[in-house]
């Protein structure tokens, strides 16, 4: 066993039934024994072989479901697509910031989904229902690229200081990216209503362009650009 293959993993632990306050717990993991190359494999190895009380969410294990968003050495990301070779030998794992902790690395996503719900993330069209389907030109379809791919992992929203300070008022980057996805959609006829609902001083305009959302998005999306596009549409509507 090579000394170099030992990873020190410090994990935030909190069980509301047992602990009065959160604590950090150290684990030493021999990476030679871990069957996989991702951080999630290390977390699952710890749960399977060292401490089965460790709690975290995971599902697809390939960056599609967005379940295993965690704070890795101070930066939000998905454990399942974070490669071990890109990490130092000491890794500190904390739950996503700004959301209440249910247990260990599991956070309560209710506030995040509340903001998502406010954007009415579904197609709204008042026109008569077509016999087959609503067609869209390739150019109009291309406008949705970079918007529809969001997996709602909450890495961006929980990395945003504006969301930290006003989680009930500022929708956050993920919800605004979704709002943009429907505002840009040529098949949606509620564009004006959608823009008006975002025109208050908090829902969208609390974005200060910090761009933490861009730097942490595991899918490489750009919520700041999407927010800017919504703002430009508002200006065009006002003019």
């Amino acid at each position, binding site marked *: 066993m090579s000394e170099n293959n030992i990873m020190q993993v410090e994990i935030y632990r909190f069980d509301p039934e047992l602990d009065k306050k959160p604590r950090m717990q150290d684990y030493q993991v021999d990476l030679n024994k871990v069957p996989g190359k991702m951080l999630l494999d290390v977390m699952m190895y710890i749960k399977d072989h060292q401490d089965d009380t460790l709690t975290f969410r995971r599902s697809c294990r390939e960056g599609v479901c967005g379940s295993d968003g965690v704070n890795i050495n101070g930066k939000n990301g998905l454990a399942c697509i974070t490669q071990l070779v890109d990490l130092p030998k000491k890794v500190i794992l904390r739950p996503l910031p700004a959301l209440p902790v249910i247990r260990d690395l599991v956070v309560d996503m209710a506030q995040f989904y509340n903001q998502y719900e406010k954007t009415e993330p579904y197609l709204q069209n008042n026109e008569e229902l077509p016999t087959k389907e609503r067609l869209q030109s390739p150019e109009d379809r291309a406008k949705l690229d970079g918007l529809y791919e969001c997996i709602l992992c909450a890495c961006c929203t929980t990395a945003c200081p*504006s969301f930290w*300070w*006003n989680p009930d*008022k500022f929708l956050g980057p993920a919800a605004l990216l979704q709002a943009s996805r429907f505002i840009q959609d040529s098949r949606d006829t509620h564009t004006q209503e959608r823009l*008006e*609902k*975002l*025109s*208050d*001083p*908090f*829902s*969208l*305009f*609390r974005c200060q362009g910090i761009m933490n959302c861009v730097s942490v998005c595991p899918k490489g999306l750009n919520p700041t650009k999407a927010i800017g596009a919504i*703002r430009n549409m*508002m*200006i065009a509507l*006002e003019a």
Partner: protein
Amino acid sequence: MVKSVTSLTGNGLRDWIIQRVTWVIIAVYIVFLVSFMAVHAPLTHDVWCQLFRNNFMRLGTVLTLLAILLHMYIIMWTIFTDYLKNTLVRITAEVIVFISLLAFVIWGVMILWGT
């Protein structure tokens, strides 16, 4: 939609546009003033007084002071709504800032047209 009574216009887009327009006014004023000082270096008290006796300069200065008032109020309101979670404390802070900014504008007008 979140309603806000104490924001400048109650509308995020209008506040955002005002913030950008006022920033341009402030930037133009600063660039002009620095350029003037550079051109007239070493600046004397007489040249300085002569500059501010010009009515365009006086109006430009008042416009800039008003721009600072609007710009600063929006910024401070944003900071206060981020960090001051007690409504009474926040509104008190907002009132103090607004009165202070208004006092600066009035003081500026008094200086410009005072003597």
